[in-house]
């Protein structure tokens, strides 16, 4: 199988050797039942031990191996090799700084995540056991809590590409809504105050790349739409 993989090591020295490049690999590999991550590990094992990428759980739970394969953001560990057009082009997630090869700097992504205060804010005294929720209220959180913060959606969003420092991006906005929708949370107004901004929220133009690439099949655009609906309800 033929692979073309983005290589860049800012610490490798000066000049041409230090500029980002695409490197070709040819791997004798049976793609049957294998995922992109299996091939990356095989390349690192047998062809080039300097190839760097993140991975941990290798089954689509940890969200650490988000990469761009043939132009689409995916989790390498759950993307089948079969059916991919060769040479399979693997690049780091777009728009984030590259630390090395396929490893990107997620600082900006996490900063936006922190900004939406992704935790329950409830000033009532803590109950004996837990804060209870009706099954219907709990169901509101389905399709939101499953996000693993892999960054595939946010880095596929053109609005994030143009304003990465100001637009929160689909992942952070969906996590913002996850706590707005939580019946136990008491900071809805403050959360909406924070989001009501031409940049933070309203850079979303409903392009829906986020929905297309989400490896967990979630719908950040719908969550953003619900935030907008709540803002309208609040304003009228």
């Amino acid at each position: 199988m033929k692979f073309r993989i983005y290589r860049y090591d800012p610490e490798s020295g000066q000049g041409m050797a230090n500029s980002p490049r695409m490197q070709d690999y040819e791997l004798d590999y049976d793609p049957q039942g294998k995922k992109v991550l299996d091939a990356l590990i095989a390349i690192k094992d047998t062809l080039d031990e300097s190839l760097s990428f993140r991975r941990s759980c290798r089954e689509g739970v940890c969200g650490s191996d988000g990469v761009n394969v043939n132009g689409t953001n995916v989790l390498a560990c759950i993307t089948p090799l079969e059916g991919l057009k060769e040479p399979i082009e693997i690049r780091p997630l777009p728009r984030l700084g590259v630390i090395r090869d396929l490893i990107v700097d997620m600082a900006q992504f996490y900063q936006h995540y922190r900004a939406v205060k992704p935790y329950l804010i409830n000033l009532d005294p803590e109950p004996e056991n837990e804060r209870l929720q009706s099954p219907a209220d709990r169901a509101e959180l389905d399709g939101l809590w499953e996000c693993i913060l892999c960054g595939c959606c946010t880095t596929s969003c053109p609005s994030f590409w143009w304003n990465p420092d100001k637009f929160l991006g689909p992942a952070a906005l969906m996590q913002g809504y996850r706590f707005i929708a939580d019946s136990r949370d008491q900071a809805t107004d403050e959360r909406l105050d924070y989001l009501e901004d031409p940049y933070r929220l309203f850079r979303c133009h409903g392009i829906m790349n986020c929905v297309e690439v989400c490896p967990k099949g979630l719908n950040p655009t719908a969550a953003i739409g619900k935030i907008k609906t709540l803002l309208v309800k609040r304003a009228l």
Partner: protein
Amino acid sequence: MRRVGGAHRGLDMWLFQRASAVYMALFIPVFAVCALAVDTMDHETWRGLFAPVWMKVASLLFVVSLLSHAWIGLREIFIDYVHCARCVWPRLVLYFIFAVLYLGCLVWAIDILWSVQ
């Protein structure tokens, strides 16, 4: 001092852009029906379409919707793409140019519509 809340802007424009789209979506088929209902379309019947006051008002609202929809859309494009270290001035100048241009179009449209007797 740090500002912790949002700018509290954007919602009004976002909502207005949708409202203007709804009006245009309603007006265009209604106008198309009116225009297709006449037997022969010539300059006189075309002028006749705009003779009633309700059609003048409806058309003017359409122009207002179209221009505001377009201006808000342009504003979005400028925010998306006009980037620099000191962007406030270039952006303000762009907003201003297009606001003047579109307001000019609006006045012109009023003049045209109310010139029809």
